[in-house]
Every structure is written in C-alpha cells, then in structure tokens.
C-alpha cells in the first residue's frame, strides 16, 4: 500500500463577489498516492485553479478537509502554510515566473533561501543537482533572457525539485510552449514520475492529459470524472512521431 500524499474530503470553496456568492468548489473528494501522475482537467471556470491554489496551500478551503503528507492544513497559520509550501510543495507556473537577470542556479536556489536549515554550500549543491536532472547542466549561469521558453520552464522545474517536495504542482506548465517543446517537457515529467515523484498537473489540453496516469475532470466545481489511464502514452514516442513528420 503506497503512502497517501494528498487527501481531500468534501472540499468546498466559495467567494463573495459583491453581493453574490460564487461557489468555485462544491464538495470535492479524492486521494493522491505517492508516485501518481495526476492531471486535473476542466474548462475555465470549472474550479481547477481554485483547486490548485488550495492544494498548493496558497488558499484555504471554506469547508472540508485537506491533508498533505498527513498534515491537516485547515488549522495552520499563514506562517505555517509558508513552511509547508517551502518544504513539501514544488510549484511550476505557466509563465515560468523566474527572476529576471538572475542565473539559473540562483533561480533554482530560491526556495532554499527561505529554509534556514540549509547552508549556502548545500544550497548550491542541490541547485546544480536539480539542474542536472532537468538536463541543463550546461546552462547553470545563464539568465532567463538567454534561455528559450522550454529551457526556462526546465529551470522552473528544477526549482520545484530543489526542496525535495512530496508533490509537484504544475499549473498549465506547457501552456506557453509549442507542441514539440510541450512534449519534451512532458517527457521530463514522465521521467521524474518514474523516479518516484508525485505530480499534479493542471491543464485543459487532453493530449497532455494522455501522458498522465490518472485524470480528474472538474466541471462547475464538482468532479465529473476520475479515472486511471490504462494506456499511458509515452511523451518520448510522441516526440519521435512529430520529428518523423517534420523530416
């Protein structure tokens, strides 16, 4: 039996917009176990961003419970949430969110700056290791301006890995990339997943979801589909295919 990393039960989240109450999430329950590669799909307004914010401890549910790595998030203060984000979660964003004019290494080191248990030597070592893992060992001292979109997203992935999180949360991580580069990034995610990383990937592109082992589909704040993917496509193979077409 694999460890449960994320446990969500009857999660609700509503916002007050003027005098209207918007129910973004209307009772969501699911578990994610260690080593899973889950995509959360849904059209815009389905509540997937709200879901990701809560999973990422950037937002608190209105009701229901959320446990990450056996820690119930509900009772935590702002500072404790920050520590959870720092130690247990790796974030990847659609627009990379790298610090401009800052080298790859320094960008990757960023989360470790906020962890006082890590010395500057360890910090650098871990950053280099992460960048190696995403295949950028030759771009350590490049700044985002000197990197392509795919490379920038790899730096962002390296940053999400550097604190050895229990889960990586990706928000439309391929949204800004062309198909070929998207597949390259997905191949990287699959590789990381094989190494045991738990990944939650929010997207609205079905072909991206095909690379994951499980897909949760949201609509109007409810789960309408939650199924395992029996035929996980290999991003490497998909990549080879488009290359053939081009050739």
């Amino acid at each position, binding site marked *: 039996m694999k460890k449960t990393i994320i446990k969500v039960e009857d999660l609700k989240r509503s916002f007050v917009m003027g005098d209207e109450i918007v129910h973004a999430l209307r009772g969501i329950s699911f578990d994610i176990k260690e080593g899973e590669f889950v995509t959360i799909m849904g059209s815009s307004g389905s509540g997937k961003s709200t879901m990701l*914010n809560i999973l*990422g401890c*950037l*937002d608190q549910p209105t009701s229901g419970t959320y446990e990450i790595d056996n820690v119930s998030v509900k009772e935590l203060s*702002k*500072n404790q949430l*920050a*520590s959870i*984000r*720092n*130690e247990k979660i790796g*974030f990847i*964003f659609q627009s990379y*969110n790298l*610090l*401009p*004019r*800052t080298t790859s290494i*320094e960008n990757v080191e*960023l*989360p470790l*700056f*906020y*962890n*006082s248990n890590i010395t500057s030597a360890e910090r650098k070592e871990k950053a280099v290791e992460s960048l190696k893992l995403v295949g950028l060992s030759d771009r350590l001292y490049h700044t985002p301006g000197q990197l392509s979109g795919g490379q920038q997203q790899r730096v962002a992935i390296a*940053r999400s890995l550097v*604190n050895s999180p229990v889960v990586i949360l990706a928000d439309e991580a391929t949204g800004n990339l062309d198909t070929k580069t998207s597949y390259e990034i997905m191949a990287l995610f699959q590789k990381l997943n094989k190494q045991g990383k738990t990944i939650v990937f929010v997207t609205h592109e079905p072909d991206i979801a095909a690379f994951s082992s499980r897909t949760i589909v949201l609509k109007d704040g409810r789960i309408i589909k939650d199924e395992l993917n029996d035929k996980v496509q290999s991003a490497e193979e998909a990549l080879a295919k488009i290359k053939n077409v081009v050739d």
Partner: protein
Amino acid sequence: MRFLNLFKIAWKAIVLNKVRTFLTMLGIIIGVGSVIAMLAIGEGSKESIKTQISSMGSNMVTIRPGADMRGGVRMDASEMQSLTLSDFNTLKATAQNITAISPLVNGSGQAINGSNNWPTSIYGITPEYLTIKVWELSSGSIFTSAEVKSAAKVAVVGQTVVTNLFPNGEDPVGKTIRYNNIPLKIIGVLEKKGENTFGQDQDDVILAPFTTVQKRILAIDYLQSIVASAKSENDAPAAVEEISEILRKQHKIAEGQDDDFNVFSMEELISTFSSTSEMLTVLLVAIASISLLVGGIGIMNIMYVSVKERTREIGLRMAVGAKEADILMQFLIEAMMISITGGLIGVVLGLSSTIFIEKVLNWPTSVTSYSVVISFIVCAITGIFFGWYPARKAAALEPISALRYE
C-alpha cells in the same frame, strides 16, 4: 542564517538595479553631505569668532557713556560727556577685580610724513592699554606716565601706518610725523595684529598719551571710553558688576534710575556672536535636513515602485515559502542598505566638500564628530521610516493575486 539570506536577497536586488539605486541614493548622499558641510561651516565660524574675540583680549571690560539724559533729551553716545578723568581715577584706585585700566579717546585725521600721507585713527591711552589689549611693541618703547601727564607729543604707531608713511623701509622710531598738523615723535612701533572680527585693520592706528589727544587734537576734557582688564576671563562678570557700582556711586545715580554709562565685557560679545552664529547653524542645518527628508521620500517612492514592479516576484517568493516577515525584512533591508550606503557616501562627500570649502574658499570650518554620527543615524532611521510603508505593502500582498498580477 535566515537574516543573512534576506540580506543577500536585498543585496541582489540593489545590484540588479544599479543606476536606479544610485539615483535614489543621491538624495541621501546630498542630504547627509550638506548637513555635515553646513554644520562644519557653522561650527567653524563660531570657533573663529571666539578665537578672534579672544585675541582682542578676552578679559577686556569696556566702559562707555550711555543713556545720558540732559534735560530730558537722550544724546548720541559720541556726544555724551558723562565719563570723566575722575571716574577713571576712582576706578583705578578702588576697583578690586581689574588688573589694568586705561582711558580711551580717539579721533581721526591725516598723518603726514614728508611727501607721504595716510588717513588713520589716533587713540589716546595710557601705557596700560597695551597690557589690556595683549599687544607688544616690535621696536622702540611706549611712552611713560610722565609723558602722559605732560601731554607729550609722542606716539607709537601700528604696522599699517608704518608701511604707508615710511614706504622705503626706514626705521620710523625717532622720526617725527604730523597728525592733523600736530607734530608727533614716534617712539615705538606696534607688533602686527591683523584684522579683527569686524574686518577692521587693527594695525591702522596711532597710539598717543590720552592727554595729548584730548588737549592737542580733540580739544575735549571728557573721556570717550575706559577700557580695563579683569583679573581673568571668569572674573569679567564680577568686574563689570563692581565697575557699575563704583560708577553709580560716583555719578550719584539713585536707586531705580538708569545708568548713564554702559559696561560690557568681551565675554558678552562672544556669547552674542556665538548665539548669532548658532542661529545661522540651525538655519543651515534646517535647510540641509529638508534635503535629507526629500531624499527619504525619494527612497519611499522608489521602494514603492519597486514593490509594484516586483509584485509577481513577491508572489513567487511567497509561493516557494517566504513568510510575510521575510518579505517585509527583504524590502526594509533594501531600503536601509540604500540609505546607509548613501549615508556613508554622503559622509565622505560632506567631509571632502568641507575640506574644499576650507582650502579653496578659505572659510573657517570645523567638523564635529557628533554631526557625522547624528546625520548617519538620521539617515539609517530615514531608511527604516520611509522603507516601512512600501515593505509593509509588499508583505501584505496575497500570494495568489500577486502571482497572477500583470
């Protein structure tokens, strides 16, 4: 450890925006620099006034006629005739707190030596005048009491008079000059004394027995003033008190009536000038402080823009684990680094411009350590004070909205 990290982060942000940081600093640099320079100028002028007044004889007490009422008409000090020789004699005989005393009558006129002539003042005195003024002779000798008594036609001259009447460098001692057509035999030459506080050339003077000046030159029988030396600078107020008392008795001034004379010491003069220059210093510093304030507002402005501009970065930092306090500290440290670095450069600028002012403009300056310390502390506080609001603003951002900020 954590603090050190925040320090590194702030340093990074400063280094990434060198030009902007420098321009922000400029306000602080100019502010601190001008505070230090202005204080140095103020202190310097205060000190130079003090030393110049002291060089005139810091324990000198001067008595002048004043507030003289003749039939209800107030008269100009120069016309008052309330000081007399008998006042002088009484003071000389009875005042305990003074060591030397001399009457003083002065007039102006033309000094002539052959084909050279020179307009100058003549002071009628007794030999004790030189003791009071702390003045030495460079050659010759001062006249004797007997010569004073007989109103002898002798004189001691100052350096400026010598240069103008004896342009060829001959020795003036023993020569006879004419002053307002009265022949005076030069028996001594005064040492050079230079300008006094008021820019007056103290060497442009002829000293003669007061009797000579009274009778032969001015044709008066009263004294224009009396100068005396208190036992020490500290005894000056007591001497002023004592002289007043003696003169009131002498002039038969009843209790409650105004004095018909003024007695004042150099000490009073010093404190008058000091308070004037102190006010000047306060004024200069106030102006300089305004520029420091403007510099501080500049920091606030830039920090505020910087927070806006880096909203997404702040969101990201929060997403990867920065706490509110971390963000607050980051921006506060950044503001303080700008203000303190600016302050340090400002100190250097202030000190070097002080040297410039001293060397090139020849203004007296004096840098006090407290001015450096205070302006430095003020600028550190400025950093915290003006950095606080933008930093608070940054720390209060919601990570979700900050991350999505466009």
